[in-house]
């Protein structure tokens, strides 16, 4: 593309030609030319922030309908990979927690633990009305947490019920701006040592109530076991000889039969 005879986005050779033409008979200084062509001058903060904001990896965390909208981003229609967002299933590899969906009192300890397991620096987007104030559950729910910021610090509130995928993009872009403004030198000042409200308690540690005995119980094993009376017929090719393994009995499919 050319405007008034001057080429925009000129090629490297064109820049060199222009430089040599404007420098007189001495010619273009080689050192300056090499520096300007091969060195980017920037601050360490900018470089660091650029790397971080371009690879915000969100944790795959969703408890309700908000996650349906969030999951739409993963597909090709909205394609959030172009923002460098790669969904991670492990909190150890994630640096963005998008709290998508209602958080109940039963889910709250798990959410806090997931947040604690994420490495610093970490960011939280409270997505949807439920995570901001409790939403429609703030009226009379017996179990909904009214505002996830009572559990973990929130960087960005994303209203909607649920927000459109475009709104999530908007939130991610705003979060990128926030990440881009941070400085490594100020990190020690900004980062909090005590990031959520806790009360020193004197409670005693007890055995966990969920022990897995429910699934291992004999009644449950029998309930989940397919009927052993009905053999599952496997379609055979005519040439294949019938062996004892050709008819798979349902018993052998159940992983629990060896226990009982």
């Amino acid at each position: 593309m050319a405007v008034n005879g001057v080429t925009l986005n000129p090629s490297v050779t064109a820049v060199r030609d222009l430089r040599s033409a404007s420098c007189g008979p001495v010619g273009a200084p080689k050192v300056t030319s090499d520096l300007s062509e091969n060195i980017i001058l920037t601050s360490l903060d900018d470089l660091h922030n650029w790397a971080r904001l371009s690879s915000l990896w969100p944790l795959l965390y969703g408890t309700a309908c908000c996650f349906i909208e969030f999951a739409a981003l993963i597909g090709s229609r909205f394609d959030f990979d172009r923002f460098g967002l790669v969904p991670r299933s492990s909190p150890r590899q994630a640096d963005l927690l998008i709290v998508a969906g209602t958080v109940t009192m039963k889910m709250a300890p798990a959410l806090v633990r997931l947040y604690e397991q994420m490495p610093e620096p970490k960011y939280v987007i409270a997505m949807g009305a439920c995570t901001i104030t409790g939403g429609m559950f703030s009226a009379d729910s017996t179990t909904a947490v009214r505002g996830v910021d009572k559990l973990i610090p929130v960087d960005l509130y994303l209203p909607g019920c649920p927000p459109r995928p475009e709104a999530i993009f908007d939130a991610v872009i705003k979060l990128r701006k926030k990440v881009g403004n941070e400085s490594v030198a100020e990190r020690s000042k900004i980062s909090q040592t005590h990031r959520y409200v806790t009360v020193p308690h004197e409670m005693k540690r007890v055995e966990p109530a969920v022990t897995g005995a429910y699934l291992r119980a004999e009644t449950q094993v029998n309930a989940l076991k397919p009927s052993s009376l009905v053999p599952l017929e496997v379609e055979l090719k005519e040439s294949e000889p019938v062996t004892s393994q050709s008819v798979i009995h349902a018993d052998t499919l159940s992983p629990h039969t060896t226990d009982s």
Partner: protein
Amino acid sequence: MSETPAAPPVPAGPEPGPVSAWLSQQGLGHKLLEPDHFGVEMIGIEPTLLQVVAAALKADGFDYLQCQGGYDEGPGQQLVCFYHLIAMDELVNDGPIVPPEAKPREVRLKVFLPRDGIPSVPSLYGLFRGADWQERETFDMFGISFDGHPHPKRLLMPEDWKGWPLRKDYVQPDFYEMQDAY
């Protein structure tokens, strides 16, 4: 779960329906209740007789526990545990083609329980395996304990929760997490 509370039995009570007549014929004691607005027959059962009646009805063709649940009649009143049974097999297997207007036989059993102490009914887990989680939810929400259930523990609420959230006299604990956000 928000059904109108059944009217107390009066001398000129409701007409006994087919299931009630069948139960009387079998010599199983029960209480006649008004049918609901769909005309589904409703029968009150004593807790001690529940397993016997349910087993008899299952043998009579009511092979599907469509819904089990509970409700609270109001402050100081009774807790109700209900069982909605329908007869699926005879509808499907009566003929090769089921006419579209065919309706299965339905009946709803209700067990009225005092709210003092620990109300308990025998579990129907042995008869209908689908009662497993539904009875656990009823236990979770109303504190009705089901004797003989293999896993009598909460289903929805945290397992160390105190109180029965769907009872009318439930008092919400004033936890910080559940106070208003503004």
